């Protein structure tokens, strides 16, 4: 398996809800809009979605409630059978798998975190985390070793014997995260994992999540309805509306070049300098002298850019390689708002 092959690849995926979705879908003539389909008595929860997720990539799916995010992510793990299109996981069409193969895929490759945690109320933290291992039929001892390992990883050491009811929301979600990591999955799905938490805890969990992500480098699909959260965590963001993807791109690109008015509305309220990194503004060219770090946001570089008098400032990678030149005026425009 080459690294170039996408881990998950969706091709024209559709999911319709309604009385007879399969027949309706087969008899459909033109690609109708969401409203057309609704008039026929169906809900297009996912509408003609195509996207690829590369190995190690962190894709955030962002959209308002009801836009089809949960449905899309469930199509990728076949918790929901799709109405049309194909979903390939590491090159295999999951719609064609039988029950055994599907269970096997989930046992070996996938982990998922749920918005309302989905913990088993009658099991301790340890037993919850060990649950996927138990399903795989591992013996009690190995199960326990591994579960203790992940519990420590998510910072719940010492609470192994607690029951979910005895934990706070944030702690419960840590258990959910630990459980999803117990089998060392290749693919990590997170369906609004922090939405049910208080803002302060949410922030803390995001930091925690970034730490884990850095450490584990897993291919992940992260769902959120919070644009800020998406910008903080994503390698790429897919913005959904009425079941379809409006735009799928890096945070920089989405903020700088929103593809549709709908996307633009989200970006309006965003302080762009906190999102855009020097890398995104670098153009080919070479110059000497003090360089800007490519991965820093303009906001982080504000002082440096403001005090540097050069019109074109060099940008370099962390390893010192020269990346290009940054147009100071353009950067200042973003930092302080365009001079009208």
């Amino acid at each position: 398996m080459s690294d170039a092959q996408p881990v998950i690849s969706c091709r024209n995926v559709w999911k319709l809800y309604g009385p007879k979705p399969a027949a309706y879908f087969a008899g459909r003539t033109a690609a109708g809009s969401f409203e057309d389909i609704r008039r026929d008595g169906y809900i297009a929860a996912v509408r003609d979605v195509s996207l690829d997720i590369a190995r190690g990539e962190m894709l955030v799916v962002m959209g308002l409630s009801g836009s089809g995010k949960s449905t899309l992510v469930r199509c990728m793990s076949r918790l929901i059978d799709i109405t049309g299109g194909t979903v390939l996981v590491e090159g295999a069409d999951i719609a064609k798998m039988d029950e055994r193969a599907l269970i096997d895929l989930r046992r070996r490759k996938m982990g998922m975190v749920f918005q309302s945690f989905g913990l088993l109320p009658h099991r301790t933290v340890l037993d919850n985390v060990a649950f996927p291992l138990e399903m795989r039929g591992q013996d009690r001892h190995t199960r326990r070793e591994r579960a203790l390992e992940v519990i420590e990883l998510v910072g719940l050491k010492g609470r192994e014997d607690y029951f979910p009811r005895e934990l706070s929301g944030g702690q419960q979600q840590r258990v959910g995260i630990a459980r999803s990591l117990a089998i060392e999955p290749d693919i990590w799905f997170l369906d609004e994992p922090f939405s049910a938490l208080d803002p302060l805890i949410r922030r803390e969990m995001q930091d925690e999540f970034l730490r884990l992500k850095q450490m584990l480098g897993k291919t992940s699909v992260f769902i959120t309805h919070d644009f800020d959260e998406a910008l903080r965590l994503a390698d790429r963001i897919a913005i959904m509306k009425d079941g379809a993807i409006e735009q799928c791109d890096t945070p920089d690109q989405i903020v700088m070049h929103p593809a549709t008015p709908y996307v633009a509305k989200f970006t309006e309220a965003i302080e762009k300098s906190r999102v855009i990194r020097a890398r995104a503004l670098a153009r080919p060219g070479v110059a000497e002298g003090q360089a800007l770090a490519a991965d820093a946001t303009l906001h982080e570089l504000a002082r440096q850019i403001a005090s540097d008098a050069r019109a074109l400032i060099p940008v370099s990678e962390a390893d010192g390689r020269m990346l290009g030149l940054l147009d100071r005026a353009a950067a200042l425009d973003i930092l302080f708002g365009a001079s009208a």
Partner: protein
Amino acid sequence: MTAQRKGALAFLAVAVALALARNILPAALMRPADWLVWPFADWLNAAFSFAQNDLGLMAVTRFAASGIEFLLDVTGNLFYGKNRWPHLGPLPWTTFAVTAGCVAYALAGWRLALFSAGTFVWIAVMGQWEWAMQTLSVILIAAPITFLIGLGLGILAWRAPLFERLLNPFLNIAQSLPQFAYMIPVVVFVGVGPKAGAITTIVFALPPMIRMTVLGLKKVPENVVESGLMSGATRWQMLTRVRLPTARNDILVGVNQVIMQCLAMVVLTSFIGMPGLGQKLLQLMQSLKIGLSFEIGVTIVLIAVTLDRISRAWAVLQPRHFERGTPWHRRHRVFVIWAGLMALALLLASLNPWFSQIARADAFSVAKPIDAAVDILIRLVDPVSQWLRWFLITWVLIPFRDGLLWLPFTTVLCLLMALGYAIGGARSALVCLGFFGLIAMTGWWDRAMITVYTVIVAVALAALMGFPLGIWGARSESRAKRVLLVCDTLQTFPSFIYLIPVIMLFGVNDVAVVGAVVLFAAVPLVRYTIEGVRGVSAELVEAASMAGADRRQLLWKVQLPMALPTIMVGVNQSVMFSLFMVIIAAFIGTQDLGQEMQRALSTTDVGKGLVLGLAVAFMGQMVDHLVTRWSEGRLQALGLETPKGT
């Protein structure tokens, strides 16, 4: 005027016309003519004898019964020394008290522990050990079997929606079928005695277990299911390790209901020769031994409360963790205590037989003083109760009964259709016609009307007591809690118990029957009135108070109208309870369906028993349909503004 109202008025007019023209009415409109009365009972009997003789079902049931009999022999030996394998028993009564106390302590703490242990001490000391153990030994077998079968059927119904849809009407009818209707087929298929008692009990207690299992499985959160699937669980693992454990609390509520139904039924199966507390109570009541009946009544009540509280505590028990490194004896503290106390109990029993068995001659009895006290009480209230009896019989019961019997059956049917039309339109009118039309076709019209009259009078009287009591009880939060606790406790009592005080007061007659039914039927009314009134949103009450409503206006204009749908649930339950009670009370002597049911039981006439039972069930189903329809309409009206011009 709406179409619904027009239809209702039309049927009302026909009903009145039929009643007025009574004297010139052809006989076929007065009472169901011969061609209208179908021999359902004969058909059922033919079907049963076919199943019994030609299909060989008898062999199957006898085989199953012999399995249950073996189990009953084991508990029988351990509990009261029945001369059967394993020949160990009877265990000393102290061991039961210790065990009950420890179980209650583990589940609910000190107070229930004392109460539970105290129950067994009372039973032993009052010399009722053998009877109580006969009863409990059957419950201990019947309840787990019911649990397993109910769980299995519940899982099936949950897995196969088609099966659930087929099962549902059966469950509805089964839950409104009077207990006696269950007994007759069992007597035919397995005979009488403990095993018949156990089997009747199992069949009777099954529906709530099935219902709660389905409910619990359906309630398992989608997220939990998905997390199970994503963990790679197979179907079997999903069921046994994800769904059932997560539905645990609902399933345990089902277990609580099973246990309570079992107790209620085991007491009643004394009618088919099941020995134990029920049989003793029946004999004592029939010979009017009030004091002794009272003692047994107390025992049954104590057992009921103990079983109910313990099983309920189990249902709501949440797991708790121990700190790491807690030693074994601390983790299993109650077990250690239990083992110690058991050893002590056995030691004491071997030293002094009083701690093992208390002979009836050594037992205490409070029967004499109770008899004396009741005598005094009766002499005191006699003028009142005599007058009440006279008044009820001459001015309420007899006129009302005669009035109902005087009406042509077609009038009654038209009245019911008018009611149905007014509440739920043409469909409900047809439902009413269907249920009562079938009752007419059984040929038991007059008897059915007597049952109807008893129930109407009883529910009306119960409402006269229950509503004010409920409204009074709902006045404050703490009072509501206390009254609800009393209602809860009263509802755990087997129906039989309610007969004791009324027989004490009124003797054996119609008034006693009505009295028992009233008591039994008032409890749900009080309960749902309180829940309805307390359930009105605090915001709404505050808004009304700010608008200047005084307490009276608040009650009549805001709280009661809002609470009405909930109160109607109480009325529904009240009617259901009344129907059951009327049939049970028949052995005191009534002339309604219950009396015929008793006859069918004594001649083991399966067909007749089932037809009578179904007639009662249909009454219940009709009321249930009307109340449900009405509440739905009402809730809709309260939820949204009523749309105009519909």
